């Protein structure tokens, strides 16, 4: 499968389905769900350190990555987002002791399942970002944004015909 985004006649053509196009200035929307204690604090640190990253991410705060029900991911992809980034504490650092271990299992299965039914694996990404890793957060967002830009707009199961 080709992952390069094609540009023709001033339009972006989805790498996943050539019938879907978007304006040349199309920007993806990435739904970022961050745990309160590590990743949200890390993203705050990115801000405090004035480290710049692409403006495509929209951040939702949850107490712990284990609060993330897979249907948040599915719902995001079906409605507003072109990709999802979920971030929590590093293994062993969970503020709630073991939350991210349970979450990690669910994330792996969810990611593989969504990939299996036709979502590119880069649309569903996970990261561990600690409260001290402001630069890492910026790097992760930049990478995810870049990946999703390459894939073009998400068209499947979208409720865009509203």
């Amino acid at each position, binding site marked *: 499968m080709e992952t390069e985004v094609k540009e023709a006649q001033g339009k972006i053509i989805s790498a996943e389905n050539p019938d879907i196009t978007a304006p040349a200035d199309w920007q993806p929307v990435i739904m970022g769900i961050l745990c309160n204690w590590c990743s949200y604090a890390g993203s*705050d640190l*990115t*801000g*405090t350190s*004035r480290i710049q990253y692409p403006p495509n991410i*929209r951040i939702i705060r*949850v107490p712990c990555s284990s609060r993330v029900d897979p249907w948040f991911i599915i719902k995001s992809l079906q409605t*507003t*987002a072109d990709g999802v980034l979920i971030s929590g504490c590093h293994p062993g650092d969970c503020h709630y002791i073991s939350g991210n271990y349970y979450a990690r299992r669910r994330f792996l299965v969810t990611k593989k399942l969504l990939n299996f039914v036709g979502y590119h694996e880069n649309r569903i990404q996970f990261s561990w970002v*600690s409260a001290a890793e402001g630069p890492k957060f910026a790097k992760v967002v930049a990478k995810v944004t870049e990946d999703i830009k390459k894939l073009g707009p998400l068209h499947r199961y979208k409720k865009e015909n509203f």
Partner: protein
Amino acid sequence: MARVGVFVCFCGANIAGVVDVPAVVQEAKKIKEVKIAIEYKYVCSDPGQQMIRDAIVQNRLTSVVVAACSPRMHEKTFRKALSDAGMNPYLLEIANIREHSSWVHQKDKKAATEKASDLIRMAVAKSIANEQLHEISVPVTKRALVIGGGIAGIQAALDIADARIPVTLVEKSPSIGGRMAQLDETFPTLDCSQCILTPKMVDVASHPYIELIPYSEVIELQGYVGNYKVKIKKKASYVDFSTCTGCGTCTQKCPVKVPNEFNMNIDKRKAIYTPFPQAVPNKPVIDAEHCTMLLKGKCGICAKFCEKGSINFKMVDEVIEREIGAVVIATGYDLWDPKPYEEYGVGRYKDIITSLEFERMVSASGPTNGVPVRPSDGKVPKNVVFIKCIGSRDEAKGIEYCSKICCMYTAKHAILLHHKVPDSHAYIFYMDIRAAGKGYEEFVKRAQVETAATYLRGRVSKIYKKGDKLMVRGEDAQIGQVVEVEADLVVLATAVIAPKDNPALARLLGVSYDKYGYMSEAHPKLRPVETAKAGIFLAGCTQAPKDIPDTVAQASACAAKVCGLFAGDTMKKDPMISTINNEFCSGCQNCITVCPYQAIVTEEIPLGYGSKEMRTVAKINEGVCQGCGSCVAICRSMAITLAGFTDTQIINEIVAI
């Protein structure tokens, strides 16, 4: 019908410099539920808060969205403002348009403005589903646990106990005192460490509100703030402390000699020993790893000579349980092993020692009776080279951070060397001199001027042996030349590192730790003594390298925190916790499995209205629940709701943009 007020903050130029605030306000006004949208220079200021309060009353708002800095910053401030206006404080949502927009998209003002609008839209959508929440009160057990009996633990325990709150002090080694007990004199005043520490140690032992449990470790912590249950493993000492008088005969008679860790293995101790003469409690313990009787069943000389019959070889580890309300962690520090410095010949040359070994030698009660000697031949050294930043500030071999105390103690060592061996000369290789602190810079000057220590700015590249001398080759960056110093003794100022047990302890206690193994504080500036887990506090080097004054200050701060926590009979608790709708609960009990706090129990409810048959469902213990939401996400029937982060709220956010 929801009536939302949106208040957008300029934060001076912090937000307004990038985000087009008036445009964002216009955008917010388009949202159906938004009744009022206002911009203001500093919403967190008094007039700003007054504006919110007025708007709430005038517009009969049902929820409030503040678009400003991170909720981690001012959530409490604005909640209070809501409260003051007679509104439930949990009807507040914060759109983080500073840390998440203006500060990170400074070059793309259009996108930053769009993003700010979206974040506000999300916050408005979430706030519509906000519910009124009320703080929960939980009873408190007024007893504190202090882990670690160094100066931090001692100070914390004494301060808490002085407030007439019982304290349990747990120390891993046979005596309290910690690292400070190993020091000779302390910078910058050169007080005798023992002289200022021992009275405090004695105070601990005799304080009516302190229960001292030496030679023991914490093995389990359960519960939640105000209501913890701790299990302490008291290691078998094989000496009955209740009858032992501490006469010391056993120690004299014991035939087994073991390297003395208190003296950095420079001399030997016995298998039955007190770590140092002023130990508290001053009772010996048997080192089970070396005692012949315990290993092979032969010997037992100590028992024969003990008049009180206090020796009991059949003693076993004992588990002590205590109910406590708060924990102070004061586990101290370790020193970095300089082995990776192979070019210095560490391990090959006996006359390269660490600073703590030097400290023990110059200590009047130390193994060499206060005179530094060369380990190779026992001669008193004349030229001593001190090398700083061994392992510290060294990404290649050691750790990245500065160990903070080495500059000062090396200056102290130079002075002490001069005092003990007046005809000696100290050479100090350094990267920078960091002497910020009261009287510190003056102290370094004293070392440089009074004792005429030679400070050489530069790294040492190589140490090699020439006869019985060590040749130290390094760079003097100030003159830009390679210098070689002929040294009798080389002292390495090795880095301060976190104790290797820290991560295990942190996991056991449920607090987080950083990549070096130091315990993490809740906020680096504003909550430096709290951990993220309520009721657990940090004192001393368990959090980061510190000198004694800072450690003592932090320990007292911990005590103040603990006393604050215990000030009332009950404690207020954040209401953002899970609740179970037992109508939907199918009773599979999977939530019980994943709950990290054992906060979920089962209860029996009637099968249907008026039914005599019962069915089992899950129930949250609201005192224990910390609100992580693990149970919420695994509950297949969506019977569990996490207040403040309900499914509806999160999905509202997702579909809002």
